[in-house]
């Protein structure tokens, strides 16, 4: 402490400085009459407070408070242990982790697998391009089966991607059938 510091003087007077800091302040006080005088006044003020004697509540107040407090404490015996409160942060963290894991699992369970997606896609396609059914309908001369129209649409869409040879052949077959059904 190179300059006069009122806060340091007060902390020294009340013995709240660490030993090294206290020694530093004391060195300054030894060289500064103003701080030395102020330190002494602070110590006298603190010493004067020591003359304050403890006060006591009335006997009635003591009995009443002791009894009420005791009852309040003993009621705690019937309450659940404070396990939840004591470990509240750990439990909250565990709950968050459990929800996150559960959400991921549900997501994975609910989502169709690649095989399922493939099946879903192929089934309607195979229904639509049921060539036997189409041929029968056309052979009996009935009105164009809506499925043939749908098959055209599906096949047209499929033709944009890589198709295998069977689908290409099917397309050619359907075109021939249409020509035949129209009498050309």
């Amino acid at each position, binding site marked *: 402490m190179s300059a006069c510091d009122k806060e340091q003087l007060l902390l020294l007077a009340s013995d709240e400085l660490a030993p090294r800091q206290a020694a530093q302040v004391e060195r300054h006080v030894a060289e500064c009459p103003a701080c030395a005088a102020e330190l002494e006044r602070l110590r006298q003020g603190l010493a004067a407070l020591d003359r304050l004697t*403890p006060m006591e509540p009335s006997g009635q107040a003591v009995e009443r408070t002791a009894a009420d407090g005791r009852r309040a404490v003993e009621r705690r015996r019937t309450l659940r242990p404070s396990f939840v409160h004591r470990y509240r942060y750990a439990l909250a963290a565990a709950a968050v982790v459990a929800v996150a894991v559960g959400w991921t699992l549900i997501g994975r369970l609910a989502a169709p697998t690649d095989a399922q997606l493939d099946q879903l896609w192929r089934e309607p396609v195979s229904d639509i391009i049921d060539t036997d059914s189409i041929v029968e309908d056309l052979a009996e001369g009935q009105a164009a089966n809506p499925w043939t129209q749908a098959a055209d649409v599906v096949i047209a869409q499929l033709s944009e991607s890589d198709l295998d040879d069977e689908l290409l052949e099917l397309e050619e077959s359907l075109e021939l059938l249409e020509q035949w059904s129209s009498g050309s």
Partner: protein
Amino acid sequence: MPPQADPERLRHLVDRCRQGDGQAFETVFHMFRGPLYSYLARTTGDRHLAEDFLQDVFLRMVENLDRYEESGRFQAWLFRIAANRVRDWARRRSHTERVGGAANLDSPAGTTAVDRPVAQSPEAALVLNEQVSRLEVGLASLEADEREVLILRHYSGLSFREIAGIMGAPLGTVLARSHRALLKLRERIGEPAD
């Protein structure tokens, strides 16, 4: 006079209270009732009110036992409850109604037979009583916030840093307030010069 409590014993008593041990509560109550009551009486200037507040403080202590974090000292936590109680009360009162602390307690001198310290001889008793009277009057002449910080420190035995935490004020503010209060008090009680 700050309460002298072995920290380990206190920790054990608080644990017992948490588990519903009424006897442990009574031990803690008797350990702290004097200093707490003194603080409450001298800051409110009203003995009866201080008795009510004393009960409030201990019941709140029981209600909040599970919230007590054992990182800080138990008495700091207990006196914080008391200081908050006083603050709530003071907020509801206007500045002009606020009592002047110790000087308004039971007798004009601010002390009663219970409070007056015992002296060895009649002459010594007279001197002591006079000193105590001047002290009481000196305390009463301080600003409320100045008086509170001195009284809180004296009865709780806590450090200025802990008191700053209780009062919710920066340490520098508490130190400045205490410094000012102590010098005023020293001047008004007329302590002998160096």
